[in-house]
């Protein structure tokens, strides 16, 4: 059928800290917990490594949602990294919201290495939320389009 | 049949019987224990097994004082009294199954009996 509408598949970038969340994502896999393939994970040493620039770049290149996962407050491998991340993202997300990137498209979550189930549940929920919002067009750089 | 009844009890009560670790503290604390055929911990276990009809037929469902002692003291938050309540409701919600009928009241009255007792008994025993 030539006119078949392809179901919207969001592009989602997940930044996961190496010590907690990336391990939590691995555990989700070890326990065979499903979440959509739309989520692609980038490993960073700590949530505080994530530069707001990376998130802007993701939206510019057509990402529909970006999620940042780190250790629970107080559990950061580097003591305070997740606090920096939380503060930076609060500012960034409210600015993005102002620019028309809805707050629901960005998220910070704490996932420990033991929380495989939480990781999968979080991703399922996030993908569902972003899918409902539809394609992100606000920051997309049309020059990046093919 | 019993699966449907069990599902009804679980839905009405909101209780998760699988949380029970079978310590028996509910029955240790129940003030109506000696008047009951099935005791609070048996309510939990029998609901888990789906033996709802036996419980519905038992006078035990009218002996719970709703004193919340089992709910207060359960180490697993199982709340057995809610099961008793749900099963009693399943009985009295059926036509003609009221455990207390208005005609019975006059002979139960005495001078001091507070209204509170009558309204509570109607809440618990009749629809």
């Amino acid at each position: 059928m030539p006119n078949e509408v392809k179901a919207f598949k969001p592009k989602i970038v997940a930044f996961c800290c190496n010590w907690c969340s990336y391990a939590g994502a691995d555990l989700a896999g070890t326990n065979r917990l499903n979440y959509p393939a739309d989520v692609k994970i980038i490993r960073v040493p700590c949530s505080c490594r994530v530069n707001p620039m990376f998130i802007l770049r993701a939206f510019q290149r057509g990402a529909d949602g970006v999620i940042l996962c780190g250790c629970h407050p107080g559990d950061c491998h580097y003591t305070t990294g997740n606090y920096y991340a939380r503060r930076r993202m609060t500012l960034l997300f409210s600015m993005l919201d102002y620019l028309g990137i809805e707050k629901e498209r960005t998220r910070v979550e704490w996932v420990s290495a033991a929380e495989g189930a939480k990781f999968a549940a979080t991703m399922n929920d996030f993908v569902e939320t972003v899918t409902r919002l539809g394609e992100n067009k606000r920051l997309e750089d049309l020059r990046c389009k093919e | 049949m019993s699966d449907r009844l069990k599902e009804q009890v679980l839905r009405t009560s909101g209780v998760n019987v699988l949380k029970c670790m079978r310590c028996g503290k509910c029955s240790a604390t129940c003030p109506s224990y000696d008047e009951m055929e099935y005791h609070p911990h048996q309510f939990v276990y029998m609901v888990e097994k789906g033996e709802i009809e036996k419980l519905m037929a038992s006078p035990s469902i009218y002996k719970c004082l709703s004193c919340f002692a089992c709910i207060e003291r359960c180490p697993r938050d199982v709340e057995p009294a809610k099961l008793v309540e749900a099963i009693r409701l399943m009985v009295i919600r059926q036509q003609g199954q009221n455990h207390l009928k208005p005609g019975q009241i006059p002979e139960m009255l005495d001078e001091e009996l507070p209204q509170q007792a009558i309204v509570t008994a109607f809440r618990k025993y009749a629809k």
Partner: protein
Amino acid sequence: MIFSYYPGCTLKTKAKDLDRYARLSAEALGIELRELAEWQCCGGAFSMAKDEIATKLSSVRALADARETGLVTLCSACHNVIKQTNHAMATDADFAMKANNYMKLETPYNGETQVLHYLEMLRDVVGFDKLAAAVKNPLTGKKIAAYYGCLLLRPGKVLAMDNPENPKIMEDFIRAIGATPVLYPYRNECCGGYVTMEDKNLAAKKSGTVMQSAVEAEADMMITACPLCLYNLTKNAPEPRLPVYYFTELLAEALGVKEA
């Protein structure tokens, strides 16, 4: 201070004293209790079933009407029903939605009203130290056993009034009116409740255990906030029996307003 006040059915009939002394004392303490314009009986027992909506609506109505002022209750049973209903309205979204759909209130109600038992009002609004200062006829030398029963404190997480296993609010009250509290272990066990209607035997056993425990602790009298407890203790407990009073009666006596 002004509070809405919910007396309940029994306080209008068999337990008029509980109500009358409460009003006189509140007035003496500078608190205005405004009886809700329209209230219906709470039903005496909170239905623990998730699918019982209609039986809880009278409480929701009272709660919604008291939004501006907060609500003071007195009878243990009303207190239990109204506080549990309020908790359900605040925490059980499904129940709150159904109740609001029924009620068709102008502003939906979601458990905002603060519910205080009269004793909580004495403790948290008046303050037991202020109460002690207002006492004109201290009940010095009286050894009083507080009877909480089951409904005043449980379920502890919902009523959040006092430690349900080792409460002290009534003992502190007893001290405030100049008397001496007597501790006994069955003060938070059930008196037999409404089952007294069809099983006097059970009521006799349960209230008997409570009464005997208070007698052994060498109390002169007992106090309660519940008409049904008072009934079971005075009517069904075997001898020897202590006199049982509503706590408001002793309060009015201590404040010197009993004969007003």
